[in-house]
């Protein structure tokens, strides 16, 4: 005999709560266990750490420093995303791999963007470390509350608005995530997550920060920025998928976002740097490689970097040999 619906609902709710509690406890205990292991072991060394990130041979280059931290060179400008250089984030999550560059070797960074307020994206200790290198930090609307006073300027940029300095333009674009830092502040931190688009000298770079898959967001961005040269897209955390899906793309969704954006190249970020999920080390990369095979995307379209690796995406065009001026022209140009 079936129970009346009024009785079934509480049972369902209890079952759902039990499931959620069990799942979250299992996830939390797994993450805690891995972080405990990381706590007693030093971060893995990066084999070849770059000491001269300024590439004279590049118009557009990307250095993956780890997690969502990248250094983007666009001609003579440097842009950094979500700088995290500390040994842990949120005091509890330990770094698995050392940062891809020593902060001392960073160039002067023209603009630094923060995608949202989580500890693995807005790291105050990291901002302390790189403070002398930074000129301008941009945060999503409402984000100033969690950026204390530094020597550099910090400004908020609302959705679809831009910050501009000379020819360098940085625009906040929509993503699907959450904006809180501590939990309870989710009630009022409702606008503090964003993606960013950098434009300079005809080149365009997309930075997705952390995002779930919402096709409309990527398509709207593509409509406004139809010539994206490179999309820096997160591919993890993947598991537990039911929980992560609301706020994070997995590799399959990240590739779809890349195609929605119509970008020329995708560089995956936000994996294998900190323990923040049930993912095994290397899992996100492995899944991404499978998706690339499925979608027929080669290593020229989805360029997977190692932490500390720098990739030149647009090289400086070779200088064409200058022909000696004709005698007639010389005569004409004379006084």
């Amino acid at each position: 005999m079936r129970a009346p619906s009024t009785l079934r609902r509480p049972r369902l709710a209890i079952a759902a709560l039990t499931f959620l509690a069990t799942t979250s406890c299992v996830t939390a205990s797994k993450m805690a266990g891995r972080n405990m292991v990381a706590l007693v072991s030093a971060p893995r060394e990066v084999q070849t750490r770059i000491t001269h990130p300024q590439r004279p041979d590049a118009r557009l280059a990307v250095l993956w420093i780890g997690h969502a931290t990248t250094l983007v060179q666009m001609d003579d400008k440097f842009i950094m995303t979500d700088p995290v250089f500390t040994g842990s984030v949120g005091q509890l999550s330990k770094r698995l791999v050392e940062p891809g560059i020593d902060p001392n070797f960073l160039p002067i960074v023209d603009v630094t963007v923060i995608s949202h307020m989580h500890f693995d994206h807005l790291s105050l200790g990291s901002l302390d470390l790189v403070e002398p290198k930074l000129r301008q930090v941009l945060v999503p609307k409402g984000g100033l509350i969690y950026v204390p006073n530094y020597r550099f300027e910090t400004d908020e940029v609302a959705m679809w608005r831009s910050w501009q300095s000379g020819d360098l333009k940085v625009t906040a674009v929509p993503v699907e995530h959450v904006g809180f830092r501590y939990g309870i502040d989710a009630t009022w931190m409702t606008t503090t997550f964003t993606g960013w688009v950098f434009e300079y000298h005809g080149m365009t770079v997309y930075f997705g920060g952390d995002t779930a898959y919402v096709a409309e967001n990527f398509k709207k961005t593509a409509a406004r920025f139809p010539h994206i040269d490179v999309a820096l897209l997160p591919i993890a955390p993947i598991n537990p998928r039911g929980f992560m899906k609301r706020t994070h793309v997995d590799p399959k969704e990240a590739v779809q976002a890349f195609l929605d954006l119509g970008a020329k190249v995708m560089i995956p970020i936000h994996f294998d740097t900190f323990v923040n999920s049930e993912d095994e080390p290397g899992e996100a990369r492995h899944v991404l490689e499978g998706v690339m095979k499925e979608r027929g995307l080669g290593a020229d379209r989805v360029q997977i970097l190692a932490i500390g690796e720098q990739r030149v995406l647009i090289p400086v065009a070779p200088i064409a040999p200058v022909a000696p001026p004709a005698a007639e022209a010389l005569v004409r140009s004379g006084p």
Partner: protein
Amino acid sequence: MAACLVLAPTTASGSETKATEPAIAPTVAWIATQFIPSPEVAAGAGHTHAGLRWQVTPLLYSWGINRKLSPWRVLVAEPLSRQSGSIEAFLSPEFIDVDGDATDKWLLRPGLRAYFPILQHGEYLSMSVGSSYQNVQGRGSAAFEGGLYVLYGLFGVQVTYAPLPHQPAGTIVTLRFRYF
């Protein structure tokens, strides 16, 4: 640096620099967390007593948060606003299990406390000093305190000392739990 905020992507004119004040307000979740007590042990007059302490912040001034924003908070103060450097007026309802009836066991401790950041703007490690007034079993006294906090101020240890002799709770060690 000649920088400006402009409408994107078509209008490249006008400039603005906005700082958005957070719409902080007491929520049900926040109120619920304020009921979580901090356990403590009070020692004095040859005895030790268990106790519980709660925290209310009628007013806080933060010098640690971004200078473009209001430094004032009423009741609800984000961990960074508090731990990055602030001074707060506080009221602590407190229960100390001394001998006597309920009026002897319960007290309301008013005081002033200043927080100072030590690591990562106070989010990783911060400290506090303060003073308050306590009245236990009819013995009123000024009290002085110091504290050390980790994990955005979520966990900490506070030591409160009332210097007058024969205080039934002359020294109190509190394991401070505080979430916002």
